[in-house]
């Protein structure tokens, strides 16, 4: 892929949930890159404007949930003149396929990008079987 391509704005996708919230405020889906190495699964999520203290990550029944809460106080007293994007909280869930060692999950937040390192459990690591 060429690195000099022109960037296009990606329209923010909203979270679709089975239940609706009582107030129709929007929650957005963070853009994600997910890749796998032999030992771990990496999940990279873009959540601009979210502080690292306001991120919640949990795994339940092999489903990874990530929640990012926007600090709305930054927007108080500001009057919008011209807008191209909307702001809101972020939330996304992934069904994990390989068994993850939940005790060793690492998370790092930098410049609005959350990087999750999910190490595979021993039994889920690929192994070579030698034919005798």
């Amino acid at each position, binding site marked *: 892929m060429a690195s*000099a391509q022109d960037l296009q704005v990606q329209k923010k996708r909203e979270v679709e949930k089975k239940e609706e919230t009582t107030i129709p405020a929007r929650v957005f889906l963070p853009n994600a890159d997910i890749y796998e190495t032999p030992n771990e699964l990496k999940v990279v999520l873009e959540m601009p404007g979210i502080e690292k203290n306001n991120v919640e990550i949990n795994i339940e029944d092999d489903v990874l949930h990530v929640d990012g809460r926007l600090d709305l106080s930054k927007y108080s007293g500001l009057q919008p003149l011209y807008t191209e994007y909307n702001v809101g909280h972020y939330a996304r869930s992934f069904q994990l396929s390989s068994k993850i060692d939940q005790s060793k999950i690492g998370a790092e937040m930098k410049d609005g990008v959350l990087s999750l390192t999910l190490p595979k459990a021993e039994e889920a690591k690929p192994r070579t079987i030698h034919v005798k």
Partner: protein
Amino acid sequence: MVTVYADPFDTLFNLQRALEARIASDWLQNQTAGQGPFPPINVFQQGDELLAIVELPGVDKNDLQIQAQENTIRIAGKRNVDLPEGVSVHRRERVFGEFDRTLSLPVQLDPNGIKAEYRDGILALYLPRSERDKPRTIKIG
């Protein structure tokens, strides 16, 4: 009597509605120039100053270039999304590449007073109006 709930979700909804209402605004119509509409920009007013908030997650500060001149401001840079070698990719949604965008504002700026701050993937540009552009009260003699 109307009870006001201090519900944070309600606050979010009101903010989102305010932003939504401005999407159709022609305040900067035909005034933005550049190679494309990336990155997305919101412009707010804060007293006499303008505040442009740009969503740019995962950009190296050193890769960002901001130039100001009279009433235009240019934001250029590149965004790298590097994957390590030899990984198997499951999802690829983050975009990368170069961008160059110029905003022409309907007010004159004070180029020396412009402040830029990049934090948590958000670029905030404080754009003060130049002194000579500010409205003056004229007393009738």
